[in-house]
């Protein structure tokens, strides 16, 4: 019996491993290919590369276009993160604490930017902005990215609030804390991991975003993805690959930061090793 199962399990396990590895290669290959390309010493985006050099990174950091795009991306990303996190956190708190009907509907409505195709949102934003003159401005881009990012903050903060004990707010009130103090001293520290994750999502949403930038941003407001897109169409140089690698590194850093926050939060809420003495 046991030998039969072993022989059966052998090929099954082998197939599982192979499939997993193949899927991972499928997912990772396009990203991995960018790395050698970005270090190419040649003029063309071809593999194999004729040799390796830092020249395209030099090019990136000496190009006013790319530097402007980097600056724009960070300005828009950070501003979006701050505004979307404020709006999303307050909305989540209102939905969590409020006593009214139709909460699920409200969450669904506020999440529509996540579901509606981005190109639809982008076109709508373009027409709306043309009425008020917000096209071709960083402010416009920030507003549009905030619309796209709020749902992510709302949903992560709502998820964190599920573990929040409402009695803590009642306790804070009976101890004399007005609602805004209770928010900053009690609620915010306890939901901080969720808020931070939401803020990172918001930043990443803006940092990656191309479609809205295509509609709304003029050359002065080009972000990194928009500049890469322009580079692909105008002159196909390996600088794009260098920019891509830099974007990937940024994403990895964000991921690591998020993971650190999460594990710290878990460690803090768990009791320490030394047991409390009994009564």
């Amino acid at each position: 019996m046991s030998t039969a199962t072993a022989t059966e399990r052998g090929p099954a396990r082998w197939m599982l491993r192979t499939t997993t590895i193949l899927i991972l290669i499928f997912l990772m290959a396009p990203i991995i290919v960018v790395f050698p390309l970005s270090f190419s010493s040649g003029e063309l985006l071809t593999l194999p590369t004729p040799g390796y050099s830092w020249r395209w990174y030099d090019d990136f950091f000496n190009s006013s276009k790319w530097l402007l795009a980097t600056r724009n991306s960070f300005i828009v990303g950070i501003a979006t993160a701050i505004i979307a996190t404020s709006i999303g956190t307050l909305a989540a708190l209102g939905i969590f604490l409020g006593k009214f009907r139709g909460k699920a509907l409200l969450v669904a409505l506020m999440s529509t930017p996540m579901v509606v195709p981005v190109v639809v949102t982008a076109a709508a934003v373009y027409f709306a902005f043309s009425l008020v003159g917000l096209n071709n401005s960083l402010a416009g881009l920030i507003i549009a990215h905030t619309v796209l990012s709020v749902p992510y903050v709302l949903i992560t903060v709502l998820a964190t609030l599920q573990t929040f004990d409402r009695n803590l707010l009642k306790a804070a009130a009976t101890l004399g804390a007005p609602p805004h103090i209770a928010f900053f001293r009690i609620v915010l520290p306890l939901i901080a991991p969720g808020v931070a994750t939401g803020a990172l999502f918001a930043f990443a949403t803006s940092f990656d975003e191309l479609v809205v930038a295509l509609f709304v941003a003029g050359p002065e407001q080009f972000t990194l993805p928009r500049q890469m897109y322009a580079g692909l169409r105008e002159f196909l140089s390996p600088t794009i690959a260098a920019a891509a690698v830099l974007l990937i590194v940024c994403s990895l850093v964000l991921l690591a930061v998020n993971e650190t926050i999460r594990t710290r939060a878990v460690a803090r809420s768990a009791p320490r090793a030394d047991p409390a003495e009994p009564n």
Partner: protein
Amino acid sequence: MTDAIVTFDKVTKSYDGTTQVVKSLDLELRRGEFLTLLGPSGSGKTTTLMMLAGFEEPSSGVITLDGRRLNNVPAHRRGIGMVFQNYALFPHLTVAENLAFPLQMHGKSKSEIPGLVKRALDMVQLGHLGDRKPVQLSGGQQQRVAVARALIYEPQLVLMDEPLGALDKQLREQMQLEIKHLHEKLGVTVVYVTHDQSEALTMSDRIAVFHHGVIQQLATPAELYERPTNAFVASFIGENNRLDGRLVSRDGELCRVRISEGTEVVAKAVVDLPIDAAVVLSIRPERVMIGDGEHGMNRYHARLEEVIYLGDHCKLRLAFGNTESFIAKTADTQAAGKMTRGDSVTVSWHPASCLALPPADAA
């Protein structure tokens, strides 16, 4: 001692506009007393507490604290402390920081806070645990911190919502006495909510028994136990034998009640009831005497169903009147041990220990 600190004047609460959870409540709290709101779940006791704390608004009626109307005053401006069943300690703050929080909110200066925190910790015998986080404490320790935190800014009124509900029996009894002693020492007014009648009897100056949103009786523990004014209170507080019957005649304090099978009992009339009204007789098991009593009234024969041995006393379950679970307590465990099922037992009781009460809700 007798001046009112809190008054409820015809306070009504309804969540859906039709069912009233609290019905036209009138209640006066005396300064410095320990008042318990006792009742089964859904009786309106917790809603009453929440209205006083400021977490629910009355649908109608007025609540005052020190003569000041509380309606529409937010909870954080009422100056009423509260202890919750799940402790509600702030998990991200240490014990000392939890205790400092209300002091900071009440504008105490930075220099005096550490001293006050230390004094409060000593008061609940946790002086050495100030640096711990709440999760590192046992349930009993957490509740002590919660009590200290509610008392530290010296509110004149503290509310406790089943604060010992999550603790095991032994610890609960110890904490009951600790809280009672703190109350005596500090002279603060306490409103305590529980569904545990022995807890209410142990701790309270007065108890308000809630049922269906109405206070059935408001009295001292001894009064509630000895002189309940209706059948619900009699059955909710302590053990109780209940016999249904009809009023036959009245003669001043005493009355005759016919219980179903034609047997008549002499009982003490607690409230005025018309002849032939349905009454409930209430007799405490420890007031039922076994064997030939000294007085002639209320002597009956009952059939023994079961002897329950409880160490210091025995319970006899008897078939009597319309019930098969008429309980009598006896300290004579040796005599009880010799009885067997089916024996005819003579039981008797003094008319003063047998109360003729109106049935529940008719009060």
